């Protein structure tokens, strides 16, 4: 069977700045760019682990104290938090929970997951750092 389509497919051509034309598109693109910070932080941390594993712990710790890396990490935390909050909101939008006659709202999922995030973060600190 031929793979040719019975009719031509027309696609609207979009320039690289298409996401600036609408507030929702801009929010969407900011959300997508949080992945850049998630990926780069992971790669930097893998490099840190390589220094730890090879016994160059002092170099790893010096790298963490450099102003450029601290500034990047502050930005990474802000963007990762934005990723977390929008992710929690989306969970409520995609998978609302039905309880009797009422259905959960996205902001309720956001609230529950923020509480969960705080509990998990505190548990990590308490169990893996303070104990």
């Amino acid at each position, binding site marked *: 069977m031929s793979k040719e389509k019975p009719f031509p497919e027309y696609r609207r051509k979009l320039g*690289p700045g298409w996401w600036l034309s609408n507030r929702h598109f801009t929010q969407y693109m900011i959300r997508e760019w949080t*992945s850049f910070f*998630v990926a780069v932080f992971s790669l930097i941390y*893998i490099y840190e682990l390589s220094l*730890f*594993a090879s016994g160059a712990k002092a170099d790893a710790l010096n790298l963490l104290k450099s102003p450029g890396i601290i500034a990047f990490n502050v930005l990474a935390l802000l963007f990762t938090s934005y990723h977390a909050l929008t992710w929690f909101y989306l969970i409520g939008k995609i998978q609302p929970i039905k309880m009797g006659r009422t259905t959960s709202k996205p902001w309720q999922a956001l609230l529950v997951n923020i509480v969960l*995030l705080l509990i998990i973060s505190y548990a990590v600190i308490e169990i893996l750092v303070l104990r």
Partner: protein
Amino acid sequence: MPQVARLHAILWGVFSMGGFIAAFLLPVLIYLVGIAYPLGLWPVSGTDPTTLILDHHHLGTLFLFVTVAGSLYHGIFRFQSTLTEIGLARAKRALEAIGYLIIIIGILATAVYLLQYNPSFFSLP
């Protein structure tokens, strides 16, 4: 279900799991390692958090592996798709190939470095 579609579904499923990991576990790791330690903020006092976490042997090593590997997968997977949305759609296949290469090498490297640091990880506690 065709095999390609099944693989696609699995990759998106792992991506979604990585999204959960990046949302729930990554912020605390960034705060501890990248902000609290260099600036001397609570709860870090003296010893760096990576050493403290790895000293918890199984649990600490598992936490670092899941957080770093899950976040790397999620971050790279989404970033390469973002690049196709801002004018690099023609390079989609190349971007996917580079992305998966970074993911595979990154995850393997994380496992190797953690096992080098804690060689007895697979022994019973």
